[in-house]
Structure formats: C-alpha cells, structure tokens
C-alpha cells in the first residue's frame, strides 16, 4: 500500500540502476558461512534515482575510499550458474 495515498495499486517499472551512496559498512566478520570466503566486503546503502534505498555489495574493483553522495550504478553478478546477485560499482 502507498503510505501517502493508501492506494493498493502497484506496477513494475524498470529502474535506471543509478544512485548515490547513503552509507556503507565493511564486513570483516562473516555472520553467515556463505560469506566466509569474501571478507572483507563492503555493503553500500544506496539512494536509487527510482526513489527507494537498496543494499548490495560494492564491486571490489570500485574506487575507495567511499564518500556520502558518491555516484554508483547497479550491475548483476553471476555468482554461479544458478545464482545472480546485485552489486554496485562506483561511477564517477
């Protein structure tokens, strides 16, 4: 439901994937065994142009250090044949 007008209507639209960094954390400790081999990894919280916030890892090739407001873009990463996950990369 829309929290402003309480409409129950919803529709899909394609987001640009562009956004800016709202905050981040660098995980040095894996709290789930699936991430043991990838520490340390950076999780960025991103203000998407589409109007929502989204969390995803930062591609390791991205520019460091981060700053608030830094432009990023979403891409999809094939972790395995069966699993694709989103990640962000910096986009100066």
């Amino acid at each position, binding site marked *: 439901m829309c929290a402003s007008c309480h409409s129950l209507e919803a529709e899909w639209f394609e987001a640009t994937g562009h956004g800016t960094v*709202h*905050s981040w954390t*660098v*995980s*040095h*400790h894996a709290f789930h065994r699936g991430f043991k081999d990838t520490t340390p990894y950076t999780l960025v919280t991103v203000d998407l142009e589409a109007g929502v916030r989204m*969390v995803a890892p930062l591609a390791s090739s991205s520019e460091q250090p981060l700053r608030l407001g830094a432009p990023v873009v979403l891409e999809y990463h094939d972790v395995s044949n069966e699993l694709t*996950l989103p*990640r962000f990369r910096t986009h100066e």
Partner: protein
Amino acid sequence: MSQLRDAAAVSGIGETQYLRGTDKTPLRLTLEASLAAIDDAGLTPKAIDGIVAYASGGVVAEDLLTAFGSEDFLFSATTPLGGASAAAALQCAAMAVATGVATHVLIPLGRAGYSGTRINRRVGQMRQFDVVSQFEAPVGANAPAQYYAPMARRHMELYGTTSEQFGEVAVTMRRHAALNPNALMRKSMSLEDHQASRMIADPFRLFDCCLESDGGAAVVVSAAERARDMPRRPVYLSGMGVGHPDSPSAITQRPDITTLGLAKAAPRAFAMAGVTPDDIDVAQLYDCFTYTVLCQLEDLGYCPKGEGGAFVEGGRLGLDGDLPTNTHGGLLSQAHVAGLNHVVELVRQLRGEAEGRQVEDAEIGLVTGYGDLGDGSLAIMRR
C-alpha cells in the same frame, strides 16, 4: 497532568547470575529471576495476577501460570518491541495496576542468548524484518552489527564522530562492570585496547558490540499506594513513552537513519514525568552498540543531533560525571538481558542499593529500550 504519573511503582527486582555457557533453558532462567523478584517484593508467586511476557522470547504467560499453580492472571500482555520491550512493559504494567485491572504485574525475561539461539538466527525468523530477510540478508547483511554500522558510518561522515568517541563509551561501561560482581566482563579496558580490538563491521570493532549471554531478570510492578506498604522502598514510574522510527520495516528505508524511535518517545515520557533531561541523576541506556548510546543521548535531548560524540567525551558518563550511565556495565560489559537488566539497575540505584557503584543522592533516573532496528522506549523513575 497525566493520570499515570507516579501511579505505579516497581516493588520488586530480581536477577540470576549472568553466564556465558549454561544448560538451563530460557524458562528455567525466567523462573529463577521471577522467584527472586517476587521474593524481593515480599510476595508469593500466587500473588502475581498480571504478566507482561517478553514477546521475543520463548516463554509465554501460560508457562508462568502453570509454574506458579495460579488460578488465573487477570491481565496478560506483551510489548513486541525487541530490546525496547522491557521499558515499554513498564508502561503497560503501570496502566494495568493504576486502573485496578491487576494488583501485582510481573515482567520477566530469561534468555539463553549465548548457549541457545544466537541473535542473527532470530532476526531471520522475525516477521517485522521481512524486508531485511528478503532483500538484505541474501547480499550479506546477516547480523545486527551489519544493520547498525551504516547508521554509525553516516553519523561519522555527517558530523565528524570518531571511533575514539565510541571507545569512550565502551571503556566507561567496562569501568562500571568492574565494580559489579554480577557482570561478565570485568577485566579493565583502555581506549588503546578498544582501538586494537578486531574490526567486525566497520566502523564497529569487537568492543563496540554488546555481549550475548545467558541469564534472566524480572521486576514486579504494583499500584503506588499498595507499594508504600510493601517491604522495599517504592520506585515510582513517573513518565513512560514508546516510539517507532519513520518506516520501521528496515533501517535502510528511513528518511533519516541517524534518528531513532526514542526521539518520539522522549518528549512524551518527559512531559508525563514533568521533568527535563537536566533533572536526571542516573541513566541506563540500551547499549547494543557503543554508537547507540551517543545517538540516544541526542534523541533524549541531551545535545543536538550530531553532538553525541563530543557529549560522551571527558568522562561525562562515568560515576563521577555529569550523567552517570549504565552503572552496571550495560549490555556491553554486564550481560544482555534485552535491557531488563537496565531496569533492575535503575531501581537499585534509586533505592540506594547499588553497593560499590552507587550514584550519590540519586533521586530521579531514566532507562531506555531500543529494539527491532529502531523502536524506542523510555521510563523515568523517582524514589
């Protein structure tokens, strides 16, 4: 003036020994703490006729009804606010006894947080974290440290808050724990020790994170006029409030991730009590992470948003400071009983029974709760 101001009082407190490693179940720990609190109130278990059970634990009102062999509870409720449940339960219990619905309400909490289910497992099972479970856990955000770290990081970037300021909180809590025989972490910690502790979820180091522990705590709430005839000095519930953050589904979806539900609860509770932050002699602040303490100081109104880091400097939270805080050692160094240990400690301070760590002439104090990624609660008490 609110009808609820000073209409109810805490009449009994109890705690188990805190441990990291036990064979005891959460029910057993709950019962041990409950018996201690009921005994402290000068009551027998069958005198308890109301209960506010912990919504995030495995123990329900029926367990206590069965264990006590009671005929019935006249009042039964839960306050589903995670770590804010304990202080919110005081509001709930106060309403029940002030209106005569019940006479003596028990607030018990027992958990095997170290030996049983760990917090990161529980988060994944909680309905209110559905957004987190569906969208954030699959990309590697699996535990509270990872959910709270971006709040702290943004605070640091916007306001210049430093890791050393977080360390000031950790070191102070540890100093207080060293004075408390029932605290788990009593070995001294320096700021250098804090800075050298391993990084968990940047900016949180190991010593920025609270303990996971086993144990139980409980309090009894009675109507004020009845509490005056009970054995212990009554500690009156003067002002209470709860508040949710904007967009409570996930931290990431909030307009301002550096403001907590406590910012809404605080003016409600201070108004009910008829006091201001400057009137508070001792504070027990929910400290799941060091950052949470300085953020709550801002949301309570002790300083403007962004100045919590500077506020905690110079020993202000120590026993001799302007605002002695977490005199038992807190979740960071005493134990994690979801903040009911903070309630017990505030009552002990206001009774004048905090041996070895007593704040001199403590008359008015406050205790906060913070849970479910942002819900806030506050209880202001006076002797």
